[in-house]
């Protein structure tokens, strides 16, 4: 059983007891514990079930590589699944539950899959669920989805805050072990601005556990001194609990700082995502120990040898009373020695190598530890925890020589450098035969903008393992300097062992786990190879090797070695799968940062916004603008409100907040010439004081935007754009001026937000303005399509006589800061005339009754002005305008194009939005042919019937014809082609 020892534990504070619960069971730990350490201290060896076979799983590792010990953490707004217990710092009151079992961890029905495992081989899903095709969607997928996934999905809104921050440095050092500290010291002493980050809460990495000696003192003393030196340097920023998730081009690195994971609810942001820009990245990210593949290597109590050592030294936790060590290298002897020195039993060290002679094995032997060479584990005995091991010869097929009782197994298959940051942006790896590992190929680093190395590795991440080599490598990576002297025990050569024993039969190979979380075994990879999978990337996807939340940190190298062996290919030829960010999972909250709830996205508000809200307006998004759709009164539906607003505008007077309309000033000696190119019609000859409607097309000829242009003075025009189009059209103008017509003397300025623009619309509009007083707005002084500056009710105003409704209409621009006051003045002045505000839906109905097109309704990027019968707004005289040549292409000039018509049902009902007009026959894809579609459809309160506009083949030449249109339910209706101008065809009402 695992237990807490009465002495030791360099990271725990025994004076700070902490209580937590696991599956509702109360447990105790100490300050400084990780959750995994505390669970082991409470003899909780079984912590979860595997994904596919629901096998019992225990803690394997002591860090970010842990595949098994994932839990559902917290409750309510702080619930989060798949939290790694090995990297979770214990805090008082922590609650967690184990994952992937039903009804309980101890008794799990899903374990039946385990006994059926021979029927669930690699590629099972692909093979089983492919036929019949329909069954995937209706039968298999729901079942697979029901049983998939480890943790539960959070149900409540996240209670925590998150944020992001930007920072810049010359050198970012990732990793707080001795390599990272030495690299940071070296770079900082050279005057570089340095960031040093470490993913855990502690510094020193392996050296402080393994007892290295640096400059004559224990590594821990050197680490503390180095840290103090760095903390005192102004050019150094130090962050613990900060994980470098990914490195990207140009030195961009995302770092996830877990600010308050260990102090939940203290008001600080839970995570902070640093968006760091570094001149160079030094990855001092260490190495990860590899498991060995022997039967039963997933039974709780089988752990990585270094993890067993970590729990013992850091947290005074013994994984077992009797621990068998199995290894192919000298490093694992450190675990045996540490356990023995702590007074624990090490019945045997099983070394797969034929002979061992290093300093560490000698010390182990001197301590009286039995060392068996050329030996392997035939199988681990036990179910929910280890009870013993059966020993065999590594060279054989697993014939049991001896059985030994034990309650823990410490395994070591060698070390793999953590090369993720090196590989993320293209650093290459090379196979190192001596260490049996992929290490960075320093001749082929990821390349920076200047051709230099964007990422360098330092220490164990480079593939060097002794402390002296680590420090020398780190110093060199940081630009060179004095290397501290270091000593540790000399190690003999390791020997790669990918399957244990070497000749294991299939019965054993089926119990050798490569990927613990996704349940991929040696036999699965071998099956994939037999079935023709030669690419490691394909094998990964076929078997799901390395596709779990740990992304194969333990399994990838072992898996590809087994694949290489099955293919009789050298390991470097098989290669690795791609390393992709993030290094460990980053919570979505950190990626979203501040962008949630009220500041999820920028909402643009007009100066009159607060009034709309106070009037209970129903708001709709128009671009990022918030605009009133309608102003429902008590008891009114939105539809009723829209009808009332439209009718009142036609009979009395309406008020519209049109501030969102784009307004761009265009000025200069060449401004007229410029606008003649931008618009399809002529703007250069517009008289000062007058307005003209214009269309803009893109180079292909498609209609892009429309609006009224006003000539302000000899040199200056003001172009109105659609509400959603102002930024786009301004950028379009600048694009042409800066890139194509750079020698034209034209300046533009987007003054959209400078003005509150309010439309006063309806037969009584003039009376309202006259009531405000201050300027002559009569037909004679200010006729239709003209503008004038003046004052209205004491406000400086520019008044445009333009109409998008067919009514007598004024659009009045005042400075935005006075917009609300002016609106209030209008509301007061209009009261006696029955004035009511109307919203965007009323605006749409009013314009549709008049047959005015709307960008985005009648246009969709494939429509040219000619399709909309707007040929009158296209100059025949101009030599050129943007889109002219495009419109002359045969397809766009074809008489067969769908053209704008009005549409009416025979019974006055409203045609459904999105209706199509079917035509006889089928197209090449077996779909019904069509001859037209609806673009705008409304109920007209003015006319008391449904009206619509649409694009129909043949257009107005088919006036009076009746065609079919589809309903949403698939049935069709009879629709008559009519003139699109339904109301006041002569335009008398707007011209009074």
């Amino acid at each position, binding site marked *: 059983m695992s237990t807490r020892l009465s002495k030791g534990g360099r990271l725990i504070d025994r004076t700070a007891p902490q209580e937590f619960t696991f599956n509702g069971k109360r447990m105790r730990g100490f300050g400084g514990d990780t959750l995994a350490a505390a669970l082991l201290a409470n003899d909780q060896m079984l912590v979860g079930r595997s994904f596919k076979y629901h096998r019992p799983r225990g803690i394997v590792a002591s860090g970010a590589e842990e595949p098994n010990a994932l839990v559902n953490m917290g409750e309510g707004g702080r619930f989060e699944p798949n939290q790694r217990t090995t990297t979770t710092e214990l805090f008082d009151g922590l609650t967690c539950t184990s994952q992937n079992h039903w009804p309980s961890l101890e008794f799990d029905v899903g374990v039946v899959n385990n006994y059926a495992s021979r029927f669930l081989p690699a590629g099972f899903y692909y093979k089983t669920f492919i036929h019949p095709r329909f069954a995937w969607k209706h039968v298999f997928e729901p079942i697979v989805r029901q049983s998939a996934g480890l943790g539960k999905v959070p149900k409540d809104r996240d209670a925590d805050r998150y944020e*992001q921050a*930007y920072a810049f440095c010359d050198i970012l050092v990732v990793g707080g072990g001795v390599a990272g500290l030495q690299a940071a010291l070296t770079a900082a002493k050279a005057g570089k601005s340095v960031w040093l980050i470490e993913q855990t809460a502690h510094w020193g990495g392996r050296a402080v556990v393994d007892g290295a000696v640096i400059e004559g003192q224990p590594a821990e003393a050197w680490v503390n001194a180095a840290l103090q030196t760095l903390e005192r340097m102004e050019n150094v920023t130090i962050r613990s609990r900060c994980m470098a998730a990914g490195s990207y081009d140009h030195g961009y690195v995302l770092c996830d700082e877990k600010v308050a994971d260990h102090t939940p609810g203290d008001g*600080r942001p839970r995570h902070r995502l640093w968006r760091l820009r570094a001149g160079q990245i030094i990855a001092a990210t260490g190495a990860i120990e590899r498991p060995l593949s022997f039967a039963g290597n997933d039974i709780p109590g089988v752990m990585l040898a270094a993890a067993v050592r970590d729990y013992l030294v850091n947290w005074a936790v013994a994984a077992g009373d009797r621990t068998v060590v199995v290894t192919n290298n000298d490093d694992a002897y450190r675990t045996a020695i540490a356990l023995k020195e702590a007074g624990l039993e090490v019945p045997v060290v099983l070394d797969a190598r034929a002979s061992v002679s290093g300093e560490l094995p000698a010390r182990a032997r001197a301590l009286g530890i039995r060392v068996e060479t050329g030996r392997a584990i035939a199988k681990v005995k036990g179910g929910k925890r280890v009870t013993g091991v059966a020993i065999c010869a590594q060279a054989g097929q697993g014939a049991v020589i001896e059985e030994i009782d034990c309650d823990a197994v410490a395994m070591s298959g060698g070390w793999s450098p953590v090369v993720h940051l090196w590989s993320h942006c293209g650093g290459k790896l090379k196979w190192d035969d001596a260490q049996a590992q992929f290490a960075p190929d320093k001749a082929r680093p990821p390349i920076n903008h200047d051709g230099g190395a964007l990422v360098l590795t330092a220490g164990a991440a480079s593939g060097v393992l002794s402390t002296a080599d680590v420090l020398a490598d780190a110093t060199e990576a940081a630009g060179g300097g004095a290397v501290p002297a270091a000593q540790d025990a000399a190690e003999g050569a390791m020997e790669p062992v990918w399957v244990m024993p070497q000749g294991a039969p299939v019965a054993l190979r089926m119990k050798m786990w490569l990927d613990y979380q996704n349940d991929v075994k040696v036999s699965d990879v071998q099956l994939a190879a037999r079935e023709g999978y030669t690419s490691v990337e394909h094998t990964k996807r076929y078997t799901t090797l390395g596709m779990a939340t740990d992304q194969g940190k333990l399994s990838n190298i072992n898996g590809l070695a087994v694949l290489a062996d099955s293919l009789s290919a050298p390991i470097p030829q098989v290669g690795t799968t791609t390393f992709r960010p993030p290094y460990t999972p980053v919570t979505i909250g950190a990626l979203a940062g*501040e962008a949630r709830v009220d500041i999820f996205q920028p909402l643009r508000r007009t100066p009159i916004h607060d009034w709309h809200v106070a009037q209970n307006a129903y708001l709709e998004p128009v671009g990022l603008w918030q605009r009133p759709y309608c102003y429902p009164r008590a008891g009114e539906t939105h539809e009723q409100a829209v009808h009332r607003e439209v009718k009142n505008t036609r009979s009395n007077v309406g008020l519209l907040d049109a501030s969102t309309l784009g307004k761009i000033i265009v000025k200069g000696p060449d401004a007229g010439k410029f606008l003649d190119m931008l618009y399809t019609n002529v703007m250069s000859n517009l008289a000062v004081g007058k307005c003209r409607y214009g269309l803009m097309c893109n180079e292909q000829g498609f209609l892009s935007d429309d609006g009224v242009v006003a000539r302000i003075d000899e040199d200056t025009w003001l172009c109105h754009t659609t509400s959603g189009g102002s930024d786009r059209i301004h950028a379009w103008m600048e694009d042409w001026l800066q890139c194509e017509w750079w020698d034209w003397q034209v*300046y*533009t300025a987007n*003054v959209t937000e400078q003005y509150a623009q309010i439309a006063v619309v309806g037969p009584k509009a003039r009376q309202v303005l006259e009531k405000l007083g201050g300027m002559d707005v009569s037909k004679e002084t200010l006729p239709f399509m003209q503008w004038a500056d003046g004052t209205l009710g004491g406000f400086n105003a520019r008044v445009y006589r333009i109409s998008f409704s067919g009514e007598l209409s004024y659009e009045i621009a005042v400075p935005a800061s006075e917009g609300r006051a002016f609106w209030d003045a209008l509301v007061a002045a209009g009261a006696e005339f029955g004035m009511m505000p109307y919203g965007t839906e009323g605006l749409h109905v009013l314009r549709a009754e008049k047959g005015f097109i709307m960008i985005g309704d009648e246009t969709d990027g494939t429509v040219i002005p000619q399709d909309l019968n707007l040929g009158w707004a296209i100059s025949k005289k101009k030599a050129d305008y943007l889109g002219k040549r495009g419109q002359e292409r045969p397809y766009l000039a074809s008489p067969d194009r769908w053209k704008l018509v009005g549409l009416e049902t025979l019974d006055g009902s409203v045609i459904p939005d999105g209706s199509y007009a079917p035509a006889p026959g089928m197209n090449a894809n077996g779909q019904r042919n069509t001859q037209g579609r609806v673009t705008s459809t409304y109920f007209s309160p003015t006319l008391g019937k449904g009206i619509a506009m649409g694009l129909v083949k043949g257009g107005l030449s088919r006036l009076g014809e009746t065609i079919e249109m589809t309903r949403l339910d698939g049935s069709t209706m009879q629709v008559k082609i009519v003139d699109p101008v339904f109301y006041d065809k002569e335009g008398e009402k707007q011209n009074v």
Partner: protein
Amino acid sequence: MSKVASALGGARFDGFASVSEIGPLGMITLRAKPDVKGLAAAVKAVTGTKLPAQRRVERAGDKVAAWMSPDEYLLILPYAEVKAALATLADKLAGQHHLAVDVSDARAVFRIEGAEAAQVLMKLAPADLTALEPGEIRRTRIAQVAGAFWADETGFTLVCFRSVAGYVMGLLSHSAQPGSELF
């Protein structure tokens, strides 16, 4: 009560730094190439400053001239003086190709003050605050919207579009929350 209202009516948030909406300030967008004859004199006549060089902000009392792009300047002055300033510019630059336009109402202006004020901006703008020299302006991104800021002795002045003032106030308040200091 004045009928002139700034975007947020002087909203304020006090966290580890203080955030306040100020204004309205008078602002003029002046577009002209730096070599336009009389430009320096025109800017001087309006703001009392010299023509700002690339990325520079020139101040004279409560007036500011800021470089915005190779052919654009932002002139800041009391709100009531804009009309006269536009007349002065039109007079001084008569016959020269330029564009001077009142944008006082198109903007919202914030002050971020306190010893840690820079940390508020570090959370929102991908700009290197440590490289921002005194008298230097940064046109950049404030989370999802465009913005510009510069520093003086007591803090930062930040300018953004008026319609997103509420969003920017939300960003600044979120970023200045007590307990969320970066260092």
